[in-house]
């Protein structure tokens, strides 16, 4: 399954605006997308509750996985959000 491992660069971590933008972008894609800490339990990338509960801090790595048509493109967009300041 296509995946991206990225470091969260936003000072606030995957919270507030980065989290909202991430979930909104994921929700628009017609494929299943998950997020996990490396080796951790994957959660639904389209759920703001799941992402806030995952509580990823600045400097932490996450693995984003997607499967299906357009998976590579949506992974690129999500990776760009996470690795942006």
């Amino acid at each position, binding site marked *: 399954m296509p995946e991206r491992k990225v470091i969260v660069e936003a000072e*606030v971590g995957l919270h507030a*605006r980065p989290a*909202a933008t991430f979930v*909104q972008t994921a929700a628009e894609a017609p494929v299943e997308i998950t997020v996990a800490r490396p080796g951790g339990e994957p959660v639904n990338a389209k759920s*703001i*509750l799941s992402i806030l*509960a995952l509580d990823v801090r600045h400097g932490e790595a996450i693995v984003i996985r997607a499967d299906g048509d357009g998976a590579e493109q949506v992974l690129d967009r999500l990776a760009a959000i996470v690795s942006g300041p």
Partner: protein
Amino acid sequence: MTTVLAPVTGSVVGLAAVPDPVFAEGLVGPGTAIDPVRRPGRVLAPIAGVIRKLHPHAYVVVGAGGRGVLVHLGVDTVQLHGEGFRLLVAEGRPVRAGAPVVAWDPAMVEAGGRSPLCAVIALDAPPGAVRPLVAAGPVRAGTGLLSWDAGC
């Protein structure tokens, strides 16, 4: 249907009044905001459930059917690193609706140059699923603030 209680006493001003576009534009989800009375107080659990995530300035309670409600105390208050906030429960603990979760002083937040507006968000709710029980004006902590329709 889930009734979401007001976590603080104050005046309902709506999300659009929050001076943070992430909330004001509804990016985090539908909900409302309360301008809290400027006195030290305890912030309550908006629904019965489990404290899924607890920060000094924000917490999420997950209730029946996996519905999560976010309470966010003030704008940019993450920068305070917990100063002026006291946690009254532990993350992962069950709470009843209206139970105290955090103690804070909105006047102190405001004195530090930040808005003390308290945002209450129905996480992952479609926009039409959430109705205000108090659209604007006075609200007392622990009374009905939002109604979250069944099945959404």
